[in-house]
């Protein structure tokens, strides 16, 4: 056993180095230009000039406030929605339906979901078309501010809709380890209502496992660019959108300000996570006395109805929006107020087909390679932790967060320079390595808690029956964790397919994937093309998620205890 453990011992360190090295280099490449140091652009000495520029930017405060309000609002709402759905549906047949409806939405690229939603609710969108000219009498789209509202409501809604599937799937994957089914049975026997049983008995044990995904959601919601550009306010836009703009400014001196802005964004995200952590502590303190008070909450039907309602509200808009994009991809002529295209055509698909096929193959190659590598590294790290009785330390865990909380656009510039120095840019290997940085933490975050929660008595029992550590890993732990492992792989796959900036910057334009092509075309704003590419872009990860759901169900069809829900 000691031979194997020493062989595996270096793997967690390698994994962390692979993850943190590039990100820390990238962060340095963000913070230093923010302090005026970027020799390529003639910044040779440190100064606070970029920060002064940043602070003098008109509307900066409002942009920063918008990042905080939309990001935190979306995370809270998404979390509340997931709770409501689970309180209402967990342990019932409805949960299976919700899961089947929501999981594919995880695969929808952010930009496509946002475009779909914008088409749905804009004054010339699908809803307005359905109620025009009868009964509203609108012959022309009304001049109403629905998307791009200055308060960021449309943006928050879009983020919630996109993050609910992710959080729900993460929570569902963690449920079996929290022994949810039996806890619920006991609580129901003791006379608790379903909602009370879930909040009081299951949530306290599930929450630690979904904390990391929640932080990732918080960081993403605060700093994302694609969704905010499409749905968010633009007078002014959120901080992330504005600093992306400065980074694209032909006046290269604006990059110093952008770097300072990215550092500010990083500080905002870190503070928000800190405040969230304090909120957790407060909720735990208040919640404990509430739980100990022993209220049974029997008449929770109204609450559960809200939960069912939210489950519907969380699925219908994106699915309808995507249907809208699908219709656009087949539209010849489609004018307001026609509810459907007046002429249909396959032109868009035919024209795009050759490009689509090539980009699709490239995307699959990169995703498969980066997910396989990441999964091997993560599983080996976790297994090594078990064998050497080491748990990931606090500092190590913080390093894991880095790729998820540092605004991509900023740390990738530093990474790009590193890629060029290592002669990795423009190669498939380089792009795969860059994807690995983003895929790894998602896979790790998805797996670490289910792994830690795996009842150690299985391994002990196997060992006492004479099984070697390797055999225990392959025949006990891995099969028991099949669902979370596959879910993690599917998440990683979706992440890889959806990565835009890393692919573009490290690929140097020489590696074109579905997403780089889709975003380039989306710049043209043609809904037909966006529909075509968005649908295909979502199809690839969708296959991954379908497999992640179907394989365990098939493998464990005769193992009741292994079902996600009884």
């Amino acid at each position: 056993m000691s031979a194997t453990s020493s062989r595996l011992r270096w793997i967690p360190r390698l994994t962390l180095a692979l993850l943190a090295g590039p990100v820390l280099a990238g962060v340095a490449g963000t913070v230093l230009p923010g302090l005026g140091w970027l020799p390529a652009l003639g910044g040779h000495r440190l100064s606070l000039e970029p920060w002064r520029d940043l602070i003098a930017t008109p509307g900066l405060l409002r942009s920063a406030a918008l990042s905080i309000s939309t990001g935190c609002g979306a995370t809270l709402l998404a979390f509340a929605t997931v709770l409501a759905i689970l309180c209402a549906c967990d342990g019932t047949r409805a949960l299976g339906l919700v899961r089947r409806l929501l999981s594919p939405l995880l695969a929808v690229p952010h930009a496509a979901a946002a475009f779909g939603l914008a088409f749905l609710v804009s004054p010339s969108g699908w809803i307005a078309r359905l109620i025009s000219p009868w009964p509203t009498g609108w012959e022309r789209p009304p001049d109403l501010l629905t998307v791009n509202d200055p308060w960021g409501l449309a943006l928050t809604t879009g983020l919630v809709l996109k993050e609910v599937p992710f959080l729900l799937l993460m929570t569902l994957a963690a449920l079996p380890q929290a022994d949810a089914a039996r806890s619920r049975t006991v609580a129901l026997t003791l006379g608790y209502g379903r909602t009370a049983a879930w909040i009081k008995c299951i949530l306290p044990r599930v929450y630690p496992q979904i904390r990391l995904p929640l932080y990732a959601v918080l960081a993403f919601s605060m700093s994302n660019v694609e969704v905010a550009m499409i749905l968010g306010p633009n007078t002014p836009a959120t901080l992330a959108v504005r600093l992306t703009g400065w980074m694209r400014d032909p006046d290269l001196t604006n990059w110093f300000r952008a770097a300072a802005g990215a550092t500010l964004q990083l500080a905002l995200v870190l503070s928000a996570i800190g405040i969230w952590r304090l909120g957790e502590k407060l909720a735990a303190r208040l919640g404990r006395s509430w739980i100990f008070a022993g209220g049974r909450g029997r008449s929770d039907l109204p609450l559960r109805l809200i939960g069912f309602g939210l489950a519907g509200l969380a699925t219908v808009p994106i699915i309808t929006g995507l249907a809208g994009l699908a219709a656009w991809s087949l539209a010849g002529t489609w004018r307001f107020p026609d509810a459907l295209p007046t002429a249909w055509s396959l032109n868009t698909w035919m024209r795009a087909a050759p490009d689509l096929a090539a980009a699709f193959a490239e995307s699959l190659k990169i995703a498969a390679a980066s997910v396989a590598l990441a999964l091997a590294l993560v599983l080996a790290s976790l297994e090594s932790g078990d064998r050497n009785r080491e748990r990931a330390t606090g500092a190590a865990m913080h390093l894991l967060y880095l790729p998820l909380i540092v605004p991509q656009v900023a740390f990738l510039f530093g990474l790009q320079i590193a890629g060029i120095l290592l002669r990795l840019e423009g190669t498939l290997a380089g792009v795969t390595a860059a994807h690995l940085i983003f895929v790894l933490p998602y896979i790790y975050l998805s797996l670490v808690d289910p792994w830690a929660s795996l009842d150690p008595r299985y391994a002990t029992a196997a060992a006492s029956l004479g099984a070697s550590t390797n055999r225990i890993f392959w025949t006990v732990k891995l099969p028991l964790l099949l669902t979370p492992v596959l879910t993690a792989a599917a998440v990683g796959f979706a992440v890889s397919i959806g990565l835009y900036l890393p692919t573009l910057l490290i690929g140097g334009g020489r590696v074109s994937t579905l997403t780089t092509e889709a975003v380039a075309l989306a710049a043209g704003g043609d809904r037909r093309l966006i529909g075509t590419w968005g649908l295909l872009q979502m199809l690839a990860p969708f296959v991954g998620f379908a497999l992640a759901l179907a394989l365990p169900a098939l493998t464990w069809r005769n193992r009741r205890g292994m079902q996600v829900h009884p």
Partner: protein
Amino acid sequence: MNTILTSAALICLTTASAAMAQPVPDPTDWDGVLAEAGGQQVFFHAWGGDPRRNDYIAWAAEQVQDRYGVTVNHVKLSDTAEAVSRVVAEKGAGRDSGGSVDLIWINGANFASMKAQDLLFGPWAEQVPNWQYVDVTGKPTVQTDFTVPTDGLEAPWGMAQVVFYSDAERLPDPPASIPALGEWVTANPGRFSYPQPPDFLGVTFLKQAVSALIPDPSILQHPVSDADYDAVMEPLWTWLDTLTPNLWRSGRAYPANTSHLRQLLADGEIEIAFSFNQSEASAAIANGELPDTVRSWVLEGGTIGNANFVAIPYNASAAAGAMVFANFLMSPEAQAHAQDPAVLGNFTVLDMAALSPEDRALFDALDLGTATLTPDQLGDALPEPHPSWMERLSLDWTRRYGVGQ
């Protein structure tokens, strides 16, 4: 600070270009260039948001592959600055040769910036064979990009001029001047907008407006100075203050770019749109996006025009191949193909008088499409103001209208 840096950079570049040595490969030795280009891979970084232009680039790539054995890969960008930042990153990493960008579709501020940072290869553009056909007298913007001399560092491959377009059935008599447009917007609230500066087309609209509202637009040709900036811009801000409450969404939201503006017209949200591409309306009619009653028009006194260029970064891996491709883009054959509205509808940079009768016939045979104006109807293009105005303008616009409340 930015303004100061830009002006400093502009001063530097005038001295830098004088000191430039003859580049390698040498464009005056065209046979040598052709020999070196054979078998090269050229990575052409160009905005990829227009499928028709993408198809045109693919066609041109096929031609140079067949004729010269040069392989051109179109790297589709969502923003030209991505290619600029790539070259900057390579310079930062010390990669002064073997760079990943061989050719960039560029103009205006991106060019001024790269030129100022010494990030361009050349001069080469005025030594390649097809330069002889370029109309340097009739189309002066082929040699001055937003008032910045190109100095042979970039080659023109198409003309661009602002055209307005609207549905002639709904709006038979469109406003023909900037003041008339202002009155029309007041009478039709919520039915006009422009892309949000610093979007290229949005700033162009502001420049168009200011040149119509001030008595002497020629002042815009000189670098901006603090002394006259406020006074020159005063009429624009007054005009915009009246315009903004009557804009689409009361000016609380703006379309992102030229395509978004076209989409709004297609959806019937706005009545008047405009573009830098003279055949935008014809193209959109052809693919069913706009009704066939849409027509293009220009303002009395002319609209702003410029040229599209291609430039080679200083560290390009395949400079010879890039020159061969750029030279092909300037050929009468490629220019006539681009001007065909069924292909791209992009007006030529060439001088008809300099062409052979056979080449001229290629252009005469083109049917420009119902919604495209002829070069005569387009009229004279107004020159682009100096880039320093653009920067101050978009900054001030953001302060006044871009941050709400």
